[in-house]
């Protein structure tokens, strides 16, 4: 079935925060502009975003991110609200609607959860809405323990049958574009993203959406 080209955008703390650990309005503005621009070019985007715990700790006036898991979960519950509100405020400038999707790892091994998440994400992407995805830290601790959202990014890439993943590099404004099946990885500027994404998807505005996508990282699922 023909559908719009889809990418998963991996947002890390470095993508949003400055070196002092504070949210950087400039970086956030840049990121949301890049995403809204990609949407305008005809590419569907799912954002997998970290940052909830750091934002929550900041909101609670904590100098450092709490060390214990419960403290992190509480910070995440405060910070996830802050994070999604922040994205809305920025995306509103570009008239871009978003949706909040909080997943747990059992989305990979519970068939009903899996199907529902797939359908919901497809429904959002097809309507030009950006799903902003994170782990549901209040009830699940796998990402908190791992301290990275890579497994979630790969799960989302699989759920959305994405054509590529975009990851930021240490150099601001430079991104890694990872093709489906990891068959090709290139580094490029934000402005070059739309052209290369279309090229990765076979040079077409629509993707065939074949089954050979990103692998499910079921070994990360917390049973």
């Amino acid at each position, binding site marked *: 079935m023909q559908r719009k080209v889809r990418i998963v955008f991996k947002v890390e703390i470095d993508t949003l925060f400055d070196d002092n650990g504070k949210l950087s309005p400039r970086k956030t503005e840049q990121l949301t502009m890049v995403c809204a621009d990609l949407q305008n070019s005809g590419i569907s985007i799912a954002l997998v975003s970290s940052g909830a715990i750091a934002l*929550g700790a900041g*909101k*609670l006036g904590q100098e450092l991110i709490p060390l214990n*898991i*419960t*403290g992190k*979960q*509480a910070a*995440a*519950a*405060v910070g*996830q*609200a*802050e994070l*999604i*509100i922040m*994205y*809305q405020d920025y995306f509103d400038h570009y008239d871009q*609607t*978003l*949706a*909040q*999707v*909080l*997943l*747990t790892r*059992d*989305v990979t091994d*519970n068939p*009903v*959860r899996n199907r*529902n*998440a797939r*359908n*919901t994400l*497809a*429904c*959002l992407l097809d*309507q030009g*809405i950006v*799903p*902003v995805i994170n782990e*549901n830290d*209040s*009830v*699940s*601790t796998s990402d908190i323990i791992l301290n990275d959202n890579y497994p979630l990014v790969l799960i989302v890439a699989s759920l959305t049958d994405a054509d590529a993943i975009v990851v930021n590099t240490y150099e601001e404004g430079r991104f890694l574009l990872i093709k489906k099946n990891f068959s090709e990885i290139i580094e490029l500027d934000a402005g070059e993203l739309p052209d290369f994404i279309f090229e990765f998807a076979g040079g077409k505005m629509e993707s065939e959406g074949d089954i050979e996508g990103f692998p499910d990282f079921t070994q990360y699922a*917390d049973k």
Partner: protein
Amino acid sequence: MEMWKELATCSKIVVKVGTSTLSYPNGRLNYQRLVRLADTLAKIQLTGRKIILVSSGAIAVGAGRLGLASRPADLAGKQALAAIGQAELIRIYRRFFEAREQQVAQVLLTKDIVIRPDRRENARNTLFELLNMNIIPIINENDTVATDEIEFGDNDTLSAYVAELAEADLLILLSDIDGLFSADPRKHSDAKIIPVVCEITKDLERSAAGAGSGFGTGGMATKIEAVRICRNSGIKVVIANGANPDIISNIIAGRESGTLFYCSRKINAGYTDMNIRNTDTV
């Protein structure tokens, strides 16, 4: 009445607001009412009591954001709307609570908190930690990944499990009905609100479940189910009309304002028997 007066001693309270309380009949949000709700809850929190808010309304808000006249019939469409609307809803709550210097957090739950001990433990820890920090958790069902459309049945049931999980003293269910009536008020002009119910009788369950003999706008069956869950843990439940959110202040001042489902507090109620109907998922 003595039993109502006891509510003045409640220190941990779960308040559930339904879509009918939060929105106009056209589905758009009733901001004035939300402001008053935030105002009331923030003031109660200042007295040292702990508040948990369970809020519906995400799908209605999502439909409003997309300018839809009616809700989609398919599950994916509804779940997509919930994902859009929940983000919008928490932004609005945060705005109103922040104006009253009250910190909030968002917690989205699934039935896992009832059937999976690890999830239950995580959710419980998160809630207790938030309450310790005087933050009001705003809870909703995580519709996007719910295994079926009516995982909890509705937020009446969810709020009862939350009350149990948080070891609350009181659950307040606000909707567009004034309480439990002695008869169908649409048919009997002399129907009165029953101020206190001490026992869930078969008769009561039957009349609440009956489609034609419902009290008010219906939805009483899920409320009775919420009462049943709460009673297992010795948690009192009040059903009241949320048209004026100040009613919450009256309730916790011990003034009669709807129907109180009374039971005495159990010591160390702890976990209940978890006798929910569909334990086959996950």
